[in-house]
């Protein structure tokens, strides 16, 4: 092909050459896509299982009775839930119903709020009365040594963990605000505010369910 192609390159629009390029690329893509499909078939179930296990672990950390709690599949995010989350300053990822001995015992709500270095993904548990039963951080990129203290649930001066202070709070407490009814870790105000927004978002979502 070499010399022949070179003379034709001047024309640049030779349909045969262009077709050859297109077909070569197309065939390569088909082969690669086929291989990827194969690998995906092997790994998809396994990855889904690992993700579900991680989600369950995060949910167990935020419910009142981790040993007897069971979780539903993710509920459908309704319009009302999404807009409630938005107006509280965060965004809703997913909601799971918490069941203890088969009875409704609240929700585990995964929300995303912005911290100082990006988003904080967190799981918030609420009981049947929509009061917080626990908060845990699923994923974050807060500054190591500063915001990471909030993520690691370091104790406040009062001795209560910064994430544990939310336990028992509910929509009846009004909007939670750092400085008035929430304490921040000193030096990590932005991260503390992010977590607070997350809890507010989760409470708003809980209020909007059903």
């Amino acid at each position, binding site marked *: 092909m070499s010399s022949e192609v070179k003379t034709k390159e001047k024309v640049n629009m030779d349909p045969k050459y262009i077709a050859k390029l297109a077909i070569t690329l197309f065939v390569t893509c088909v082969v*690669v896509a086929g291989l990827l499909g194969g690998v995906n078939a092997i790994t998809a179930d396994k990855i889904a299982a690992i993700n579900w296990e991680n989600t369950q672990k995060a949910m167990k950390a935020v419910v009142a009775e981790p040993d007897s709690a069971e979780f539903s599949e993710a509920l459908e995010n309704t319009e009302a839930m999404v807009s409630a989350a938005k107006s509280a300053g965060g965004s809703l990822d997913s909601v799971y119903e918490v069941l203890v001995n088969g009875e409704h015992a609240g929700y585990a709500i995964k929300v995303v709020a912005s911290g100082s270095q990006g988003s904080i993904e967190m799981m918030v548990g609420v009981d049947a009365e929509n009061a917080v039963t626990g908060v845990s951080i699923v994923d974050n990129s807060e500054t190591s040594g500063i915001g990471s203290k909030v993520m690691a649930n370091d104790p406040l001066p009062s001795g209560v963990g910064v994430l544990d202070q939310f336990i028992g709070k509910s929509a009846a407490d009004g909007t939670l605000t750092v400085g008035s009814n929430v304490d921040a870790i000193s030096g990590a105000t932005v991260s503390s505010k992010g977590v607070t927004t997350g809890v507010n978002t989760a409470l708003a979502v809980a209020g909007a369910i059903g």
Partner: protein
Amino acid sequence: MNLGKQFKEGLITNNPVLVQVLGMCSTMAITTSFFNGLGMGLAVLVILTLSNVIISAIRKIVPDKIRIAMFIVVIAGFVTMVDLLIQAFLPDLAKSLGVFIPLIVVNCIILGRAESFSYKNGVVASFFDGIFQGFGYTVVLLIMCIIRELLGAGTFGGGILGPVNAAGTHMGIQIIPSQFPIGMLTLPVGGFLVLGTLIAAMQWALSKSKNKEESK
């Protein structure tokens, strides 16, 4: 084909990170713990070797004009496969490397070797080029990990050795008591400092050995 020369090039005289200065983003971002460096290095080594072999094998049937597009398709294919396999079988590694595995697609080491080596050389030579260049990359990552982890957090072997924290990750063996390390080194700025120092040391060593050869 000269295996010894290729090996020396990959590891020292033409090291992908310290001499060609390729793949900076991942080098800086993930070299905070030993496990990350090892995982990333091996992932790149495997992908580089596979893509080198395939690209070398198809180099005669690929039209010159679309070779870059073909390279990217091949590389992206392998990266996605490795990404899925890591997620399925090494979930801890997948969690700590996060987005940097998919980003291997645009890691210049792989595209650079495809263009400058495997597109011009035979399959066997390309295979060894992939292994040696990948090895050179891994070694530099590990050196950076060890320096940054030891001086930045005071630990060694984070991710595989030492006590386990609440999140289930190994914290590494504490060598320097935790109040002394320079925390800055584990932040991105520390990556720049360590990498800059390593590149400078490498250039110094290379120019010194060159002078020696010339004076002979």
